[in-house]
């Protein structure tokens, strides 16, 4: 039950938010690229590279392609024209802008995917509970984060019941999609039934209590982690302020 080798969920969260905010504020593609690479390396070391990268690909590939088309070809402020086809002009400025936006988005997406695939949901909930966040909020968060696995588990049990009674599922995607049709109504009914009985059990176990509560799970924290979080917050705030100062020179000089 020693989880000291884990980061405190707030430390990971602070780091993720900090990295995303600083990257956005700095708006410099080398920094964005560095953050993205760092996130990828951490994902590999954490053993979640496969899931992080495939989820990132699903989000980023269409996004980056559209950025390229939109800004690479049609960038009104572009002067250095590299190529031209009718209304479409490839400008150096446009390409740079696309690169800038693309790396920034990539960095943010990777950082948040890394966080969500490595954070321990029970740890996060118990840390939230310790901060007197209302447990109902914690429950909603927990249910949301565990909803997909729960639905998948239910679906799996229904499929097993149907297979045990002669429904043939072969490996192929088409076969699976075909049988999914038979599972939808049972799934909805079962989930509704589950929700009803779970509400009774939660009530009976004092979940609706208004008073304070405690947490069984001990989430390890340390002075070093607390200092890191404080420093990261200060740095993030500084980055935001610096960005504001740079963006509105007129307001500052007046």
């Amino acid at each position, binding site marked *: 039950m020693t989880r000291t080798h884990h980061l405190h969920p707030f430390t990971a969260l602070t780091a993720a938010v900090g990295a995303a905010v600083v990257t956005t504020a700095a708006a410099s593609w080398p920094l964005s690229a560095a953050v993205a690479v760092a996130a990828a390396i951490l994902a590999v070391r954490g053993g979640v590279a496969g899931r992080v990268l495939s989820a990132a690909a699903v989000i980023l590939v269409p996004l980056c392609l559209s950025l390229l088309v939109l800004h690479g070809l049609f960038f009104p402020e572009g002067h250095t024209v590299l190529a031209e086809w009718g209304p479409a002009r490839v400008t150096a400025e446009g390409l740079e802008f696309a690169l800038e936006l693309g790396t920034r988005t990539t960095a943010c997406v990777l950082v948040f995917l890394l966080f969500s695939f490595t954070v321990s949901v*029970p740890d996060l909930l118990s840390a939230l509970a310790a901060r007197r966040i209302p447990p109902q909020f914690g429950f909603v968060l927990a249910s949301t984060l565990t909803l997909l696995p729960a639905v998948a588990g239910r679906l799996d049990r229904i499929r097993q019941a*149907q297979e*045990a009674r*002669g429904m043939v599922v072969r490996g192929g995607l088409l076969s699976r999609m075909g049988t999914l049709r038979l599972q939808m109504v049972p799934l909805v009914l079962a989930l509704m039934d589950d929700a009803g009985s779970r509400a009774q059990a939660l009530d009976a176990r004092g979940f609706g209590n208004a008073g304070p509560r405690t947490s069984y799970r001990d989430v390890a924290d340390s002075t070093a982690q607390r200092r890191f979080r404080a420093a990261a917050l200060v740095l993030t705030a500084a980055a935001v302020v610096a960005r504001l100062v740079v963006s509105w020179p007129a307001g500052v000089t007046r």
Partner: protein
Amino acid sequence: MTAATRTALRASIGSFTFHGENRPALGSAALSVTPGALTAVLGGSGSGKSTLGKLLAGWLRAGHSGEFRGSLELDGTRLEFQGAPDDPRLNPAEWSRRVAYVPQDAAAMLSTVRATVAEELAFGLENRATPRAAMLRAVERTAARVGLSGLLDRDPATLSGGELRRLAVGCAVIAEPDILILDEPLASLDGAGAAQIEALIRGLCGAGTGVVLLSQAADRLAGEATHWTVLVGGVVTAEGTPAQLAGSAELERSGVLVPVVGGRGGEPDTGDRETGVLEGGAQKTGAQKDGVAAPGPGAGTHGAVAPVMAGLELNGVSFCYGGDSRRRVGPQPVLVLQNVNLTVRPGEIVAVTGANGTGKSTLLRHFNGLLRPAAGEVRVCGRNITGVPVGTVAASVGLLFQHPRDQLFERTVLRETLFGLRELFGKAGAEGKARAALAAVGLSAAAETVHPAELPSSQQRLLALATVLAREPAVLALDEPTVGLDRTGLEHLGRAVKAAAARGTAVVMVTHDLAYARATAHRILQLDAGNLREI
């Protein structure tokens, strides 16, 4: 016991009707729970025991879940309900702090948002702001009392049936309620587990807790009660001491399983494996009366008269959970089956027994391919099923799951039974087969109108059995088919198994009830440390 003179909980029920129903689930019934005493509510299938338990415990609330007329009195505070909108409202958190309930379906007790058994046990304490140090002690102590000490770090979703029951009881006991209502608490438990829970109940009574036992069997535990209440169709038909009611016509009529030979009231040999011996005894006589008792072990040769090929054959099957897990950190893989060999001939009935969590359900799931062996092979009717889809194997293998709610998914009882039958018997034949199977388990009346989830738990098991029987498989695998069944249910089951075996079906049935196994099966095997051996 001087404490026993005070009443802690008194319920007087005029009627309770679920929303959307026109017939009350509970009619006139009254129950008093005394501190430090064990009270048993006995009733057959669908008699309203679970509804009564949930009503007493605040799981079913007046106005919220149904219309309630009557009164509840807890420690002198009396709440009157008229079925009117201005009825008093029961605060479930407050009420359940005093009155705890363990549902018949143990899984329904779980929060589902806790990652380990230890945290699940602590959930109720967390919500009541118990200091962490006290929680740690309570979890450890409760785990030892219910036999979960070795499983504290496990994910509750991966527990076996018996382990889950222990967890549900533990979750209720840990909060130290004044009154504890247990719905079939010994269901699915092995001998040691049953003895442990019985000892726990005795200890709680000794410490002043009022315990209510809801049961379809007047078994050893019920025999220790100071008071029996007999429920039939939601109405109390008799009450009194066990001595007054044992052998009474009311008890006989209620469908409750009744022991035939002694054994009530504290047998010394609590470590005995045969917890269900009394139920089994009753089944044996009941079955013999109807002429359906299975032949003794000697009749096992009957199937060997003709040199037929085995219905089911397992050769060197090994299996472990978590073997193909891609997670780098996590629990070590558990080796559940080790080089298991098993041959079941057509017409043979084999019983499999073994402690909770030894892998009996795991074994049965190999028969139709829901689980695939890590090593070894499974042959059904002489054919190796490696690589054959489950749905194809299912034409020859019928599997009754341990939890009926894992088996049932349709909207009505008839549709449930019909699922997958057309492929076997054609459009014309299917409905006939379905109706015949429903009739065989006594569920004809419910066919078109009733939703499977609304059936009482024992009838859910019978419906699940009907869905399997209707397919007339060559191999019938039954995971704890007797659990929760009353006398009529057991008679239906006994007849169905006998008839299937007579048709040449190879039957494998998992049960903790050794007496039932002896009365029904030709051979009894024990699963222990991954191996099967004859006993």
